[in-house]
């Protein structure tokens, strides 16, 4: 008799747990328009705002006078764990003194692991993270970026 009771309690208990599960999914089905969490990605580009700390790519902010803050000291290059930063410096003559300045600040996006060490260690806060994340490209050369804009110079307020 006990075995029969167990048989039926197994059966009905099992059915009950199945119905509880169906209740959960059924609830979502009925409330589906409200519960849908899918983001319509390419359509919501205009409204999609990334957080300001989001590590999309390394950029070098320039002000409106086309000036950046990079002195070309090479600390970012040294700190980068995988060699994604290359600095090519040149010597400029400013006020009749020879002065080191950057010629090209090359950033290899394809090698970057977004560890943030370059941005963190930069003594003059010349580097920052950009929020752009749409990097896909068919040309691998497009990942080698030159961060300083053509013709840009060092701002005056950065101490050497």
């Amino acid at each position, binding site marked *: 008799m006990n075995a029969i009771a167990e048989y039926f309690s197994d059966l009905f208990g099992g059915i009950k747990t*199945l119905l509880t*599960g*169906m209740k959960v*999914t059924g609830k*979502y*089905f009925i409330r589906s328009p409200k519960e*849908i969490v*899918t983001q319509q990605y390419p359509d919501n580009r205009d409204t999609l705002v990334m957080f300001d700390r989001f590590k999309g790519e390394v950029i070098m902010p320039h002000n409106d006078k086309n000036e950046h803050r990079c002195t070309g000291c090479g600390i970012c290059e040294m700190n980068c764990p995988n060699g994604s930063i290359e600095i090519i410096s040149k010597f400029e003559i400013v006020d009749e003194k020879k002065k080191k300045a950057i010629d090209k600040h090359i950033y290899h996006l394809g090698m970057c692991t977004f560890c943030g060490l370059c941005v963190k260690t930069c003594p003059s806060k010349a580097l920052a993270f950009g929020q752009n994340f749409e990097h896909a490209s068919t040309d691998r050369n497009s990942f080698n970026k030159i961060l300083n804009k053509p013709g840009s110079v060092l701002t005056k307020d950065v101490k050497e």
Partner: protein
Amino acid sequence: MFIYDFSELTSKIHAGIAGSFGEGLLTTTIEMTIVGIVFITFFAVLGLFLVYMERKVCAFFQCRLGPNRVGPWGLLQTIADFIKLLMKELITIKSADQFLFNVAPFIVIIATMLAMGAIPFAKGLHALDFDIGILYVMATSSLGVLGILLAGWSSNNKYSLIGAMRSGAQIVSYELSVGLSLMTIVVLAGTMQFSQIIAGQETAWFIFRGHIPAFIAFCIFMVASTAETNRGPFDLAEAESELTAGFHTEYSGIKFALFFLSEFMNMFVVASIASTVFFGGWMPLHIPGLGGFNHVMDFFPPIVWFFGKTFTIIFLMMWFKWTFPRLRIDQLLTLEWKFLLPINLVNILIMALCVLNHWYF
């Protein structure tokens, strides 16, 4: 009752053809060709729609949107997929048994199509109306397992073979339950002919007339038929997390599409049988004693009733699939032999008692 009888239309068509070609083999051939073309078209359209429905339903269960890019609300997505599958390369396996490998998907799809022939869509709208209709449907729908077994065997892939063997064990077992649960209603109806079964539900559907045993039979039929169509939670033959894709791992292109389509069409066949046998098929909802209500119900065309019921049951099966985890093979067999079959046998006995003592409505 003024439900339109489609046999008027079909007999007119028959008279027209016979008028031109005379009664005989030629007329029969032409008629069969027409029926065949109608069925294949219906098959394809319905298959595409069911795939779309499954995608949308499961998306809503899962807080997603589902296909929504191709066409309005993604309606053309399945058509695009179908075209893609048609254009894909048919991969041939070097060490596969070529003949069986190629013939397997057709066996599966033909079995499904044969079963479809007996389904009454509306009054007089069916290709075959055997007096052993239920037996015929059961016989043909279980032929599909042959195709699955052959597909698994001929692929020369161990995953496929495991899937096929699982499927074999599964369908052989669950065929019993499907049959017995339908027999329960046959006991009540006193006939195996679909048109007669539907006619018997004019006063009320069998699930109401047969009350408790009919309801139990319906539950068992739902479980067993879900298992027979190889759908989750009984999709052990595919079991994508264990066997990658089970018996159709090695298939690609249109041959894969046939397997895919047959799964959905099997689901439709099973659901339409359930709606015919338990919910009166195209018969509108009639409640004895409420003449006015019944009259209003009759205004809805029978074809709407049929598809409404069928798709409700299909929705239920999708609900199962997208809620439950998959069973293990031994649990699957335990469920059949320890639970479904004994309950079914007792149930058929109860139904017989009910019929003998007129304990039904």
